[in-house]
């Protein structure tokens, strides 16, 4: 093994990599924002006493947390335009947002449900005994506790979504994984670039993962029943 590493290739293309990183981050943030909103809606629908509403939410959750994200992305990218007609064109970035948020929102809805169900009934009973009305219980106990109990798992899932954005390269979204592949085609320097790729993903993910862990440790004490 006498490969001569030459990271100047990487350095010379750092602007392209930086752009790819930015796209990865923006894709993650937009997905998490869109997915969180849909996730909250689906979680509420999941609690509905109206059977059809409940079932729509159940099926949505089951389908999109079980389907591989790559399959969803490919389907949205290749099949949806054919079904929508010859003039339909959705930019790949938004196809990626759609595919990733379908997955994120389904998982988010389950996270919220778990957070809600983890509230000890005794704490609702205490509120009942004080004759808080339904709205007061919802607003001052159920809502804040569900939020607190959901934050850490939601952040954890956001980190997962960041990792999943690499799949968007399959539908030509110019995120970090995609631009790295293109640079390798141009330079024939896979070792330098793939190594750099791994380090860049770590640089993005590690601080987030550590933050989530610390946050979780702090909260799990306070909400020990969870």
């Amino acid at each position: 093994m006498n490969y001569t590493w030459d990271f100047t290739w990487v350095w010379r293309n750092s602007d392209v990599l930086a752009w790819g990183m930015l796209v990865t981050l923006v894709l993650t943030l937009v997905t998490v924002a869109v997915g969180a909103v849909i996730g909250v809606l689906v979680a509420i629908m999941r609690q509905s006493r109206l059977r059809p509403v409940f079932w729509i939410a159940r099926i949505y959750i089951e389908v999109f947390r079980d389907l591989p994200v790559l399959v969803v992305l490919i389907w949205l990218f290749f099949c949806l335009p054919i079904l929508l007609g010859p003039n339909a064109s959705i930019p790949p970035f938004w196809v990626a947002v759609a595919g990733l948020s379908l997955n994120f929102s389904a998982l988010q809805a389950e996270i919220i449900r778990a957070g809600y169900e983890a509230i000890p009934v005794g704490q609702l009973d205490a509120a009942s005994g004080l004759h808080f009305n339904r709205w007061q219980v919802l607003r001052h106990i159920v809502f804040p506790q569900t939020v607190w109990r959901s934050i850490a798992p939601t952040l954890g899932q956001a980190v997962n979504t960041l990792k999943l954005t690499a799949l968007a390269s399959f539908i030509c979204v110019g995120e970090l994984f995609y631009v790295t592949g293109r640079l390798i085609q141009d330079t024939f320097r896979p070792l330098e670039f793939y190594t750099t790729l791994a380090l860049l993903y770590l640089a993005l993910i590690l601080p987030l993962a550590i933050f989530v862990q610390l946050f979780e440790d702090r909260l799990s004490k306070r909400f020990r029943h969870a």
Partner: protein
Amino acid sequence: MPDPLVKLEGVSKAFGDRELFKNVDLEVSMGEIVTIVGPSGVGKTTLLRAIAGMTDVEGQVTIGGQPAQHNGVTNGNHRLCLVTQHANLWDHLSALDNVALVRRLLHDEPRRTARRAAMRYMEALEVGGVARQYPHSLSGGEQQRVSLARGFAAETPLLLLDEVSSNVDFRRRRMIADALLDIAKSGRSIVLVTHDLETAQLLRGRTLRLTPDGLDDLSEVDTRVTS
């Protein structure tokens, strides 16, 4: 003689086929303290929940002449509150805010006023020092006293207390008993469930024993025996 604040007539309760108690009659007047004792599992908690309108029973339960029902009473119309057997503090709020929330929601007080009022109740029960702590970091007895402070803060005409001194040392049981006597002196009524006869004696009110066939008045039995 004014109408009793609480009136139970022929109250019975069954869970499915299993009959818990029947023929329970009880009247509690304003400013009175009634202590209910009885073996574990006889249905004391269930009886308190029935008075609070939190569980359905056969027979008549009226509070201030109106049938007890738990219908999400709105602010300004709180006739009673039940302090549960387990402290059940709200995990997301500090001890102080657990009590202050009661002031805010039941008495429409703004946050600062509510906290000041809450602090007074907590200091009276010697938990002012842990007011900033979260429930998970409180001892069992401290949790129980914060829970009791929540009930005091509700300031309802009727206070239902379910074993609120079980985790509390003897000196503090006296302190709680004194606090309850003060509440009764101000004209409010208390129904207290306890295993602890000392507290019952300190309160000097009527002591009743719950049995599957109704409530026995122990104080009457006592006088008959001694006289």
